């Protein structure tokens, strides 16, 4: 399905510093505090990152 969809062309006159324009925010109102089940290999990777305060890219290295 994605293959028939395309990224739209840039509208005439669009401009922003370094071609990036922050507009909205993800706020606390848009998030719920929930508990991830501490189970499975992907959780263990998450726990490792969280405990060593590592980001995804640091984890990739």
């Amino acid at each position, binding site marked *: 399905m994605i293959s028939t969809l395309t990224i*739209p062309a840039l509208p005439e006159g669009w401009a922003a510093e370094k071609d990036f324009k922050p507009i909205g925010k993800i706020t606390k109102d848009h*998030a719920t505090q929930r508990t991830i089940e501490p189970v*499975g290999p992907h959780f263990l990777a998450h726990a490792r990152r969280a405990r060593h305060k590592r980001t995804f890219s640091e984890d990739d290295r």
Partner: protein
Amino acid sequence: MSDKKVATSPDDRTVIGITFGNSNSSVAHTVDDKAEVIANEDGDRQIPTILSYVDGEEYYGQQAKNFLVRNPKNTAAYFRDFLGKDFKSIDPTHNHASAHPEDANGAVTFTVKDKEGEDAEPSKLSVDEVAARFFRRLVGSASDYLGKKITSAVITVPTNFSDKQKSALIAAATAADVEVLQLISEPVAAALAYDARPDTEVKDKIVVVADLGGTRSDVTVLASRSGMYTVLATAHDYEFHGAALDKVLMDHFAKEFLKKNPKSDPRENARSLAKLKLESESTKKALSIGANASFSVESLADGIDFASTINRLRYEMIARGVFEGITRLVSSVIKKAGLDVLDIDEVILSGGTSHTPRIASNLAAVFPESTAIQSPSTSATAVNPSELQARGAALQASLIEMYEAEDIDQSTHAAVTTVPHITNAIGVVSRSPSGEDVFIPIVQPETAVPTRRTVFVPAPKDGGDVLVRIVEGNTHIKVTQPAPKAAAANGGSRAAKVEDADDSDADESDSEEEEDDDEEKREKVWKIGATVAEAAIRGVKKGGKVEVTINVNADLSVIVTTREVGGKGGVRGVISA
């Protein structure tokens, strides 16, 4: 005592996964990263959670279950849910035909004669002691099978087990000399058993786990995101379960028996009732495989033998109330999660009662065709529902066996597990061939943060400068009523059909079509919400593709990185929290 744990150094561990149910327990281990359920010395993989004492001899599992007929008073059964509970708050419904739970200063105890000799005093065993003894047997036979002593285990628990119940369970295992590495949720163990299969790709999906056991049915809605699970809603039911199905068959065969022997109701005598129940359960299991099953008991009541058969259709008719109760339970928990059946990608049927074909087909009828129904009768690749939890526990045990106990505690601490989950999706706006804006999700709703996700979207045919618009999105259910115009057209064609009424084949296909038209169409569609950020990628090649990566940090700030696939540079921007 509950705080005392056996800690074994990782190098000395032999680990297993255990599921400990009110009806059955099961043990699994891993061989080359694949989970396998271990049979005990009787050859059973589902081991009845029952202990029985005869002449000072201890029996467990199926042998103990068989003693429900001849020795019910000295047989303790259906006790798992009593662990960590006050006597006042337990439901002894299922203990009528075995040792009765008793009140000992609020603690739950069973009085059984566990020593040899006619005049030996009966013992008062706390439920903790009964559980510990059962664990010792369960783990003992698994140790025998493996040829080395099992030291440690991951054990599954229901999602509504309290902290008190959990510590009582840990204490019982500890008393049986088993180090409890971790307690994990039953439905999550089942989901892991599916997802850990080789060649299973990690997909974002909403999963319903229907765990249908002997004395309870538990249903859970899970968000599975990047292979991590979050419970969205749970429901627990103590009315529609395997024992209720046994009861349906018990009444059926009791009535059949009464037709021939009007004076002997097998339900009015404890021993007859026990035989009736055991055989009804076997007949029920046979009906999960065959279209017919037999029922046969020697000396069912008043010394009269009884044999009969039942076919599956009949069974499904008399058990309809229970089946419908299960379907309602599943529907209710989806509603509780604020979701629609169209949101559910997969239904995992877990627990022994999930072998029942009709339960699976009733559920399949509730969900859209796109929902995968994982049960033996609806999927050729389904995992045995009776084995899912033990397998999941064994997989988890093998994942953490090299961790120090302290590391496990830290990793499972709320500081690590309790995190914000975004409520809306975050995605990118694309254009359809007809010029409409269409949302492409990148991060799905109910994803835990931090998270990182990437999508690839083609640029317009001729390339050029493109706009990467990052927006929030959510879904709604679009309902399309049958168009009245189509109905009129149909009416016309029906009138035409009446004229050549002898063409019955055409008539049939016509009426089928009509049925389809009458139904409203429900579909899940994405709605584009507030814009979060925009970025431009300039000079994309003909036939080029754009890569968009969203990083949502723990503080809900977002990093957007986007570039032409294979191109240099690209744009990186931060949206502060």
